């Protein structure tokens, strides 16, 4: 199939793996930031094909996984209000908060609907003028522009019953926070592909400059990732870390101007609560005052019980790359996709789900 097969070509992949083996002389620790990368790596079995010198850790780039319990609790509380329709991406349904999940709230009569885009949520708002329709706005820079666009459209079309619970998060600041923690001693980062389509390559410049860590922006096909690993290993071996783009068909250094302007119109930078990292300053997006009537947190008053974390769940450590799913005592036992204890087992991009689903033979 055009545009897919080229990036899964077995001969090309073998060549790249051969080159990586040739140039890699010392232990190299890389992190693939995105959940999408983790899934692709697990699904194609890439880890088994890399030389033993190259270690790949999974990072925090799964928007569902990094959503903190406190924020999930808010979404569930909103779902419990009268005349409210919650609209959300499907993966959020099963994520357990402190006491419940949106799925359970739905079973208990809340009106919670799965949508594929903010456009669907807007349509539901148009179709239900007597209800308040709240979109659970999770995601990174990739989804933020579509959320911004939906708010702008609601404004211009006079849709008064549409709201967003804004939980948008930013990638470069959390990378900085991870590097500042210093737990991992990373040599290089496979940087997010889709996020970089929006923000370009410039926001990562501080990483090689201040931390000496190599950065390559990668697409999501096995060959994309292999090529990125090769470029990272080459940078690390020559001792010249920088930001490179392997995902040239999607990313240019400036990013997508239209999307960036749109985001800036609606959002300002604020703190965000990350699972595993806590509240990180300047790592999230908030709706600007001018548009605050679309902000569900401002428009509705809710109360939530004190936040609780699930006992034994190490999703936070997994998201920081400090542990892998196999280190978790609950993995495959108390925590399965049917009965997830933590969000990394729920999301299709979650590390635990990827390990569970694809595992390796051993």
């Amino acid at each position, binding site marked *: 199939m055009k545009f897919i097969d080229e990036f899964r070509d077995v001969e090309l*992949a073998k060549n790249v793996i051969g080159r990586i083996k040739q140039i890699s002389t010392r232990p190299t620790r890389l992190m693939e930031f995105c959940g999408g990368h983790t899934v692709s790596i697990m*699904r194609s*079995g*890439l880890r088994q094909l890399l030389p033993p010198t190259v270690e790949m850790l999974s990072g925090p780039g799964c928007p569902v996984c990094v959503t903190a319990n406190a924020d999930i609790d808010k979404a569930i509380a909103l779902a419990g209000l009268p005349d409210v329709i919650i609209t959300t991406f499907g993966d959020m349904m099963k994520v357990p908060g402190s006491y419940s999940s949106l799925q359970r709230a739905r079973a208990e009569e809340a009106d919670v609907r799965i949508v594929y885009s903010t456009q669907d949520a807007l349509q539901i708002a148009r179709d239900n003028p007597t209800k308040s329709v709240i979109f659970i706005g999770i995601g990174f820079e990739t989804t933020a522009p579509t959320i911004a666009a939906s708010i702008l459209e609601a404004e211009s079309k006079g849709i008064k019953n549409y709201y967003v619970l804004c939980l948008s998060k930013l990638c470069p600041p959390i990378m900085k926070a991870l590097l500042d923690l210093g737990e991992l001693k990373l040599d290089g980062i496979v940087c997010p592909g889709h996020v970089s389509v929006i923000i370009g390559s410039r926001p990562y410049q501080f990483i090689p400059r201040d931390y000496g860590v190599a950065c390559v922006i990668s697409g999501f096909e096995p060959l994309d990732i292999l090529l990125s690993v090769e470029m990272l290993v080459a940078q690390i071996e020559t001792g010249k870390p920088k930001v490179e783009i392997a995902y040239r068909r999607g990313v240019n250094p400036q990013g997508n101007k239209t999307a960036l302007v749109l985001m800036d119109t609606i959002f300002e930078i604020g703190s965000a609560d990350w699972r595993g990292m806590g509240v990180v300053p300047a790592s999230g997006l908030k709706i600007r005052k001018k548009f605050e009537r679309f902000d569900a947190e401002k428009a509705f008053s809710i109360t939530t019980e004190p936040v609780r974390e699930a006992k034994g769940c190490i999703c936070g450590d997994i998201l920081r790359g400090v542990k892998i799913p196999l280190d978790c005592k609950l993995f495959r036992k108390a925590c399965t996709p049917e009965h997830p204890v933590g969000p990394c087992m729920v999301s299709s991009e979650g590390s635990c789900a990827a390990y569970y689903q694809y595992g390796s033979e051993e």
Partner: protein
Amino acid sequence: MNDETILLAHGSGGRLSHDLIEKNFLPPLDNPFLARLDDSAVFDVSGRIAFTTDSYVVSPIFFPGGDIGKLAVCGTVNDLSMSGAAPLYLSLSFIVEEGLTLGELKKVLSSIKAAAEEAGVKIVTGDTKVVNRSSADKLFINTSGIGVIPEGVDISGANARVGDKIILSGTIGDHGIAVMSQREGLKFSVPVKSDCAPLNKLVSQMLEASRRIHCLRDPTRGGLATTLNEFARQSKVGIRIEEEKIPVRDGVRAACELLGFDPLYVANEGKLVAIVAPGDAPKILAKMKRNKYGAEAAVIGEVTSEHKGRVILKTNLGASRIVDMLSGELLPRIC
């Protein structure tokens, strides 16, 4: 007349019910068992009987390559076939939401007629109920069926043996993607049709080629991955398959890429997986390839003594990974 809608009274058992049955159900399904209009169908059968039932709630009821009627016949015919039985008689029970148009009902009935004729089965008994608006979604159908298992046939998910070959009858994921493409709010156009088809003739041809067919199953909901996991668990063996041997249409692959699905988990309604004695695999495969529903059949892997209860996939790149059962629902109401 076809704009006429089905009313609650059509299910009352009174005059409208009789009219509906005599004018619309009997003519297309015409056979002497049904024509008697008695409370039960009465017939003779001899041999080992297979008996199965399934309810069909697919949404939307019409989709590229089929509709709920074709599905209801093929699904039950295939369930019988997968135990090696030759399907003979089906029951057909309708739950209609008031407001369904007569035109829609007739269209479904004509698909049922066509599918039953192709499979060579008779609809011998039936029932129709009409429920209030929103108590059902347009039309639900239940079919049950009986068939006779030929001498010497012993097929079960627990019969796989180490060394057996695994044959897949064709491309995977067509049905699930065809239905998905019609969903409200997600309409996209893919050149993919449901593979919905009766497989009884294919199965009988396979059994002509060899009686050493150990397991047979149609990978419907949960897809190929789930069926293979069922075999591995029931037979307490390992299963090893190769990604590059599994045929997937480009349209299905494209839609799966777009939606984040793995074709291994997407439903099929006209495919079967057979686990067969290794020595007989070539002749069974050759026979399958001559049937239009098995033209793209391929050996996709084998049964192993390692990793019991697990399915392992050799990826295109040459690595190995686990293929687990489907967890949760991929797509609701696809059959």
